């Protein structure tokens, strides 16, 4: 059924945005995670989306047109950690500097908002398709 396709595609968007949110929240909670000097500190992560081909149930005529979305890769930010002078910190190096992850809470919050809005948009698409199916059923009433 064709409206099921709209729901499937919307659901793929919901899944992708939810996983993106998980990654972003992971960044936020690790903003202050330090590691012993000499080891790699936490680096901020982000996701890369990619369109998916249509599922097997999709109509042949729509092969390329209707595409879901998936998370292609989770990329790790390669920028340098922020060094803070905290000689008393157990993870401080010999000069007294602690490596903090390069996480900007403001930037993460903006991305979280963007993920939330996209999630809402996809949810709306699913609801509308559901409503349309309901209207079809009402024809028979």
């Amino acid at each position, binding site marked *: 059924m064709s*409206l099921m396709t709209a729901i499937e595609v919307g659901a793929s968007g919901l899944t992708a945005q939810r996983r993106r949110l998980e990654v972003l929240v992971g960044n936020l909670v690790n903003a202050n995670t330090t590691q012993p000097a000499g080891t790699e500190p936490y680096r901020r992560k982000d996701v*890369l989306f990619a369109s998916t081909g249509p599922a097997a149930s999709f109509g042949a005529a729509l092969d390329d047109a209707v*595409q879901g*979305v998936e998370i292609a890769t989770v990329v790790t930010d390669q920028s340098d950690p922020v060094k803070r002078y905290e000689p008393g910190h157990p993870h401080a190096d010999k000069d007294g500097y602690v490596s903090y992850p390069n996480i900007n809470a403001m930037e993460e919050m903006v991305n979280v908002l963007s993920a939330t809005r996209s999630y809402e948009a996809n949810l709306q698409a699913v609801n509308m398709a559901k409503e349309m199916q309901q209207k079809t059923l009402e*024809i028979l009433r």
Partner: protein
Amino acid sequence: MPVKLDFFHDPTLEAAGAYMGRLSQRQQIVASNLANIDTPGYKTRDISFHATMQELLPDSAMALRTSRPDHAGRWTPAAAQAPVFEVQGAPERTDLNNVDIDKEMLKLSETAFGYSLMSQIVRGKLRTIASSINEGRVA
């Protein structure tokens, strides 16, 4: 002249059915656009949505009369799926994605509204038939 009632080849029902098919196709495409709102390089897709009534209407009293074969008005069955195109000229983000969330949301409600309207028309038409089956009593 008696009115011929052919419930199974009713032009209104057929046109409404074809239109609803288009609307559901468009809903899928809008869902696809919204799902790919953060996909780098994805371009907004759409169908030429405003199909003419002529395209959707079967050859019947409601279709245009033609005196030459190349006149518009000859009925060809409406394709179940309209061709999909990529929207050109929309402003792109730095990741070359050009999906506009507001436009897509508008299309979403527009499509759902059109679908709702069509389903009401179909329902009304079926009620008329039910009414004639029941000799004018409301079913």
